[in-house]
């Protein structure tokens, strides 16, 4: 046992730095993606076509943007259950702002994100300053966001469709062949990696996730960090909602409901500990792709909803059993 782990260490020292520091979980997640592609290619070779893969990456980018925010919060050892309606709020408010005179189309996207940030700050305030468990505070603000949107739309689907700028961001092309949504995801990923590895904010997030007491006694303003982290999560959720609205060309009630669990599952399948303090962003990317691919393959195979839910759940459990286990007690 110890021999193999020593071997593994010696192999790892020969790897390039970014691979050496990579969590085995991340590598396994990427391995699972390849396995999934291989298995699905046995069903139909279409699964390996560039078109299909790009389409999947585009769909994955909405989840990817949301999961990036969720990851910051999970690294702190908290959780954000307000994703669904903050996403919806972001989308609806962006669409609403677009109709606001000449300046509307310009402020649409920032305004949507701003609304998400506001909810993030509300969550962060509750968690950091009022010390309410994050599960509860975000649950409550999810209900509040839902309530606001229900009042805003009068209980019907809103008439406003997504403004052109939003559609362009989600479905247009700056680089021919490469959907903008993917570029957005890449850009956000680059920022997140920088944030986690090169800034004192990133270190503080990991530190708080491991021991908030120790971080506080080290002179870190832990409350501010927690608040910012939730604001990031809220902003990225809303942004994800805006992109999704652009993709489906309108904002709709409950459009975010299908994103909460996949976002959390993606972060965790990527090797981030749900208890906080451990995980790498690359893993989250892998988790997002994994989940998107799984959902897509199941729906292409025309599996009925019931079967899809069951397979989806079982696959997550199996993968977690493969590498998401906490170490034994002794």
């Amino acid at each position, binding site marked *: 046992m110890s021999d193999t782990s020593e071997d593994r260490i010696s192999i790892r020292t020969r790897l390039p730095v970014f691979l050496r520091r990579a969590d085995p979980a991340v590598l396994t997640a990427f391995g699972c993606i390849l396995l999934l592609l291989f298995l699905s290619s046995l069903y139909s070779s279409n699964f390996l076509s560039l078109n299909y893969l790009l389409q999947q990456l585009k769909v994955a980018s909405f989840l990817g943007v949301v999961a990036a925010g969720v990851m910051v919060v999970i690294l702190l050892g908290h*959780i954000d*259950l307000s994703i669904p309606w903050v996403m919806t709020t972001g989308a609806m408010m962006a669409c609403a702002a677009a109709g606001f005179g000449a300046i509307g189309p310009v402020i649409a996207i920032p305004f949507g994100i701003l609304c998400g940030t506001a909810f993030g700050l509300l969550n962060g305030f*509750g968690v950091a300053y*009022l*010390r*309410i*468990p994050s*599960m*509860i*505070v975000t*649950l*409550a*603000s*999810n*209900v*509040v*966001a*839902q*309530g*606001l949107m*229900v*009042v805003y739309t*009068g*209980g019907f689907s809103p008439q406003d469709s997504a403004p052109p700028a939003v559609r362009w961001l989600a479905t247009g092309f700056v680089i021919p062949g490469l959907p903008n949504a993917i570029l957005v995801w890449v850009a956000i990923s680059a920022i997140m990696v920088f944030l986690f590895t090169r800034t004192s904010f990133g270190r503080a997030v990991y530190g708080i996730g491991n021991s*908030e*007491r120790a971080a*506080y*006694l080290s002179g870190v303003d832990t409350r501010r960090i927690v608040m910012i982290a939730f604001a990031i999560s809220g902003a990225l959720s809303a942004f994800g909602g805006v992109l999704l609205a652009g993709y489906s060309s309108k904002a709709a009630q*409950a459009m975010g*409901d299908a994103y909460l*669990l996949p976002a*959390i*599952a993606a972060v*965790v399948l990527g090797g981030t*500990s*749900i*208890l906080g303090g451990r995980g790498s962003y690359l893993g989250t990317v892998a988790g997002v792709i994994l989940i998107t691919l799984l959902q897509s393959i199941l729906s292409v195979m025309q599996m*009925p*909803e*019931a*079967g*899809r*839910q*069951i*397979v*989806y*759940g*079982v696959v*997550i*459990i199996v993968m*977690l*059993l493969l590498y*998401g*286990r*906490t*170490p*034994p*007690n002794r």
Partner: protein
Amino acid sequence: MSEWRYWLNEQRGTLMGLAIFLLMFAVYIANHPAGLTANVAQTAANKGVLFAFVAMAQALVVITAGIDLSVGMIFILTNCLASWIVVGEPLPTALGLVAVLAAGMACGAINGLLVIYGRLQPIVATIATGAVYFGLALLLRPFPGGSVNEDVADALTGRLFGVIPSSLVALAAAVVLVWLPFRRSRLGRAAYAAGSSEQAAFMSGVPIRRGKFAAYTLAGLLAAMGGLFLTFFTYTGEAAYASGSGYTLWSIAAVVLGGVSLYGGRGSAVGAIFGAFAARTTGDMLFVFDVDPLWQPLLQGVVLMIAVSIGSLALLRVRNRLDWFQ
């Protein structure tokens, strides 16, 4: 400190839950056009009991410092199952009841196995099993339908001696037959110990695994009881995703209102019942104050937000900032 002060200290969370509920219920009754009649009590009880079962289930798991995000889906799955098998003559109906409860326990047991022996984090493990349970429910009832033995249903949702809502009696029976023995057993103590400090519990030779397993399994049982009652009220089974996830999320709110610590080791399922009734009364309150239904979700959210913020008043008493981090 004298004995009763210690008792008070032990029961603080539960009493807090009771106080919140009584306060809200008093406001509700005071503004209800009919006042506190047997009818009003029966309706309130029936609505609350569903929720109370699910909240009790959640409380059992939360006490072990876990969380069960599949509890609403077990509730839905057992509802769908009951709409198939709790029918017909007394004997098949009775067998059907037993089978539904057993199915709930099996779901809970699977959660327990994954968390304890699979060593998965409860949040993610139960997210995944929740998807599976919902899938099964959908398999059973792709469309709403089915039926239930209406005699049993009416008996359990009616009134006893014309006054006491029989659903409340059933709830009380669940407390006496499931919760109290569990709490007083060695396994129950193990569940509390594991939730409070797993390391210390392990060092003390506490049967952590069996205690947690019992908690998860009994949670499945209680959720199934909730599922049965849902069938008794609606006479049908329906695999409604929104309803399942709603019950899951509100069950977390209920345990917190009922004084169960999400960090484990503290609180009781009785507190969770009060929490559930309090949360349930919020919805009713909007009805008596004649609020536009459009505003209902928002007001519910705001009330929930205020309720959970009240807990943070304790912060004002914190004398050492390090206590923030416990």
